């Protein structure tokens, strides 16, 4: 199986990473090499194997749903790229 330029562009759209044609062509080559290497897994028959979804033998812990940190608005907004003391600012989304 090989990945064509159209697929590379489609994945970049899904991943929200813009790429120009030159980069897309380079990526196409890299991805095909990597997937050629990954295809090795098809040698194995895994029909009766259960997927491993968690490596740690624990079940998720329950806890009370309670507020532990208060007045952290300033801390949370501190690193936002556009200054505004109350909100995160993004380009206009509603016309």
């Amino acid at each position, binding site marked *: 199986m090989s990945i064509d330029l159209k697929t590379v562009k489609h*994945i970049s759209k899904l991943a929200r*990473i813009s790429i120009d044609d030159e980069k897309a062509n380079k990526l196409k080559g890299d991805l095909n090499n*990597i997937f050629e290497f990954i295809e090795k*897994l098809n040698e194995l028959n895994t029909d009766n194997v259960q997927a491993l979804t968690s490596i740690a033998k624990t079940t998720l812990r329950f806890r009370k749903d309670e507020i532990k940190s208060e007045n952290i608005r300033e801390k949370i907004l501190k690193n936002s790229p556009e200054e505004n003391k109350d909100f995160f600012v993004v380009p206009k989304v509603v016309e």
Partner: protein
Amino acid sequence: MSDITSQSLFELTSNIKEKKLSSEEITKAFIDRAKNSKKLNVYVTDNFEKAIDQSKKFDSNPNFDLKLPGIPIAVKDLFCTNGVRTTAGSKILNNFVPTYESTVTQNLWSQGAILLGKLNCDEFAMGSSNETSFFGNVQNPVGENLVPGGSSGGSSAAVAANLTPVTIGTDTGGSIRQPASFTGTVGLKPTYGSCSRYGIVAFASSLDQAGPMTKNVRDCSMLLEVISSFDQKDSTSIDYKRNYYSKELSKDIKGKKIGIPKEYRVDNMPDEIEQLWKNGILYAKDCGAEIIDISLPHTNYALPTYYIVAPAEASSNLARYDGVKYGFRSPGQNLIEMYEKTRSEGFGDEVKRRIMIGTYVLSSGYYDAYYLKAQKVRQLIKKDFDDAFSKVDAILTPSTPSSAFKIGEKTNDPVSMYLNDIFTVPINLAGLPGISIPAGKDKNNYPLGLQVIGKPFDEQNILNISYALEDKINFKNDISDWWLSE
């Protein structure tokens, strides 16, 4: 007394407790050396001024009951440090100053350690040579223009060059053990769930673990004891009784059963690594261990599995870098364009490559063929280890298939770069503890490491085996300080 910066953690803590050295003297010695070591490029951000203030504060009211009393420590720039910039080696986090502290670094400070600064690493820990960092490559103190390994390359170089007594790194597929092997230092990846992942910039959450990187095995046991803890803030942290690793450290490994997996004898492995492994086996026998041949039949499938699982998890984890809440933003005409430009300009090539792989294997129509398939093979790899550990107490392998390579040598061929982690990746997939210790040198005089792999939560055992082997191997790094500016 030997030069301050060349002392081990054990020596430094003893000297502080016996009042032969002050925290300030030690801290200043490491800072002075760092100022003359800029050529290595180990620091992304230093914390020198604050560190000196903190060392003075410690000396004015010392608490010698702490495990790291007034000891200055630099850490990988993947750990969030409250008030100190944390970049993960990426442009996208270039201006990020956390307002909270990672649990493992908090454990260091709670035991009296002082932050020296943040160490260079591959971008988002994706790399095996430290060459994907936005802040440039790191020089391996072992030799000029050699990579220090990765992703914890700044960390391995800093320990080998005596710029920090010890450090902590993170290991997703070998990022502690491979750089340790390349620099003649000790690096341990703990069992998944031992050290909290809270506050560590996430790469692949089912594989990531923090761990110690040190000059020797005893220091490694001391540091592991401090950073390993149960943490409510990490949902995969495991609540179990941890050993008193440094107290229980012992060279007595008589009767221990050590497995030698035949599948780790890979094609084109240099003779000197084969020889290194044979020597390790002989030393283990000398110490009274029993050597048992074992098989881990799915070893060859570990890397392809890893290169589905890790990028898939990474593509999900890195979705948070959208230019909205923190980090770099590139302006756009609308929200989508802002996302796309931010991520295109903010991430480097390797990170983009992995996000693309991950997005593809998780995308509609390909999920079963790739991601589900990889999770099934991961089960087989884990079962290999379960079967092996029904017969042996630990497994001995080489740490890497080669010694350190030249800067630039593998940057154009991602797959050849990935092959570096062939001996370390299976251990992450199975969630096991593994340690790399320096075990010899190749014909160029570059260090080579041996890896000891243990059962889950059996860090004490692999530390003890390493401690016994270290004594027999008697490795000397002989670094010439070629990079010093004066």
